[in-house]
């Protein structure tokens, strides 16, 4: 019964949309399949045809390029990872890093706002007293568990000290165990290093 009611409401909404109650939406109705499409076999062959056309075209063009012909026409390109790396947009959220002060100490004051805001609860901070009274507080331990992180970037946004950023351009975050996904403070301060991996 409840389901029926829900479907009813859904249909009513569609009806309202179809009848132009809602403006500015381009509606595409689902196309009915024809008989030939429904028996599937012709469509499968059509697919194979398209794939092989591209395959042979690319083989032909790549061979031609090797021999020095047809340079003007481009063939399909794949990136030869890990030898080649792709350029990322600078605003892309990549692996975290902790910003340092001029003397190399972390800028983080362990306010724990990032830890508080993190929806994945994957930041673990321990605070301690800094000998410099003008800094006063410092992170003694700062771990991020990338195995849990959802790359939302909230931690970067919330930081009052601009101490954490996600601009390392490092995206290859893979490991053989969960433990290895844990970045410690040292690694966060020196994003190139990889102790665990």
């Amino acid at each position: 019964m409840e389901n029926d009611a829900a479907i009813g409401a859904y249909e009513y909404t569609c009806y309202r949309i179809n009848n132009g109650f809602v403006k500015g939406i381009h509606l595409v109705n689902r196309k009915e399949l024809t008989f030939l499409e429904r028996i599937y076999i012709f469509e499968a062959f059509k697919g194979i045809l398209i794939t092989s056309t591209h395959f042979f075209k690319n083989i032909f063009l790549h061979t031609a390029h090797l021999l020095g012909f047809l340079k003007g026409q481009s063939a399909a390109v794949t990136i030869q990872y890990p030898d080649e790396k792709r350029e990322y947009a600078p605003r892309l959220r990549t692996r975290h890093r902790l910003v340092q002060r001029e003397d190399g100490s972390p800028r983080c004051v362990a306010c724990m706002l990032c830890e508080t805001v993190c929806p994945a609860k994957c930041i673990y901070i321990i605070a301690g007293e800094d000998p410099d009274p003008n800094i006063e507080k410092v992170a003694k331990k700062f771990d991020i568990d990338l195995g849990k992180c959802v790359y939302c970037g909230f931690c970067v946004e919330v930081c009052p000290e601009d101490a954490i950023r996600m601009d390392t351009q490092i995206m290859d975050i893979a490991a053989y165990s969960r433990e290895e996904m844990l970045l410690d403070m040292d690694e966060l301060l020196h994003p190139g290093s990889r102790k665990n991996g």
Partner: protein
Amino acid sequence: MPTLKIDGKDIAVPAGTSIIEAAKKAGTFIPHYCYHPGLSVAGNCRMCLVEVEKSPKLQISCFIPVADGMVVHTENDRVKEAREAVLEFLLVNHPLDCPVCDQSGECELQNYYMNYGLYESRLFEDKVKKEKVVPIGPTVMLDGERCVLCSRCVRFCDEVTGTHEMGIVNRGDHAEITVAPGKELDNAYSGNTVDICPVGALTDRDFRFKCRVWFLEKTSSICPGCSRGCNIEIHWNKERPYQTPNERVMRLKPRVNPEVNQWWICDEGRYNYHFIDQNRVLYPMKNNGKDLVQASWQEVMEEGSWVMKELQNTAVIVSTDVTLEDLWIAKELFIHKLGIQTIAYLPTKKSGEEDHLLRKSDKTPNTKGAQALGFEAKANEIFSLAEAGKIKTLILFGHNLIDLLGKERAQKIAEKVDSMVWIGSNQHEGMNLAKWIIPSSVYAEKDGTFMNYEGRVQRIFKAFPALGESKAEWQILKEWAQHIGINLPYENSSVIFEKMVQAESAFNGMSYQKLGEEGVLLNDSKDEGRGTMDDGRKKHVL
């Protein structure tokens, strides 16, 4: 009683009440910094300005007593504008330390700014610099820059402890809070200055940076540090074990109870929480002659239960650290069901310092409770019997015999007694004398009641589950009884309390509901000295 109008609401309050208190009664909150109901009125922060009709200027509501027919506005444009200006003024030299400041999350500057400030900043960032991170005493850290000069801490040291350590020096922008030359803030109540400081100028050295306040859970309880039974809140966190490894309780804070401790607790009580998570006995143990080895509950209950059957020579010494519920089950089992005559109570700690404010010399929370339930203070008699070899089985509740009786006597008793059973929560040297060790939970891990020195029965609440395999004393006794065929049909502490009230006439009419937040006095307890600080100073009305 004068009747006045606050924001259009009529309210009658006793003559002499200040407007701010009258407003509180009428349900209107007036923001304030320097005013504290437990201290004298300083009137220097100007945050509590209100408009009183027929008076030309705005008035500070903490200082002005109510008068009949007064009409007060706390929310009109004039008041709002003034508050905003006061806040702007207070924040002129205040550093924006909030990410570091331990008060963040509990700070009245932040709260009031969001509620009453929100002005356009006109600041050019040339703030007056003052001293930061100064340890002004063993427990308190001062940050002069953050201070709003409300003088609450100064008045606390002048009026409550009477020790006069603190003061404000210099004038204007350069006014600064400091300790008197050559002095430290090290009185027995110094931690309270941190509680009353409305901003992060005074922070607790014990708590600093341990845990952000917004991660803390709060449970009402009673301080077990002495027989005063101050009302406290346990602030704990167990979701972040990496922050404070193996530590659940982060700090204790006083809970206002005008009849017991008003707004304060002593430092001894405030920092007396580490035992909750440290050196705990986590599982039952058995003495194999040389060492203590881990045993299972089954083993302890079964092999240990013969202990309870040999009644003629069994003696029990209960402690005054456990709840009334635990004590009453002990009475039910040992006295009523088993008929043991050699049973006594004995505090687990030696008596200590006492003063005119809160501290009592008896450093356990429930001595009066043990007395009220009819336990006698004849532990020494039992020890003498034991020395004479007349006791076969001795059951102790957490006592450290070595500490209480000295090494020689304790060892002698342990040798003469066939089987010593020790039910306790924290490890100590004296525990090794026992044959059976049974782990019990501490006050933060159980529900129950304590009775303070004046006969006030007050509730403690369970904050988190017991550590390891430990259990509440009443539960241990109940299970033990089951193994020798005695049924004590009580499932939780509230049922036990109900039964106790039925059985003991002195507790007549009490129930967990009635105890509430402030506790209830035992029927026959005397009236003298109740509810005031012991020096007879005027009791502040809340």
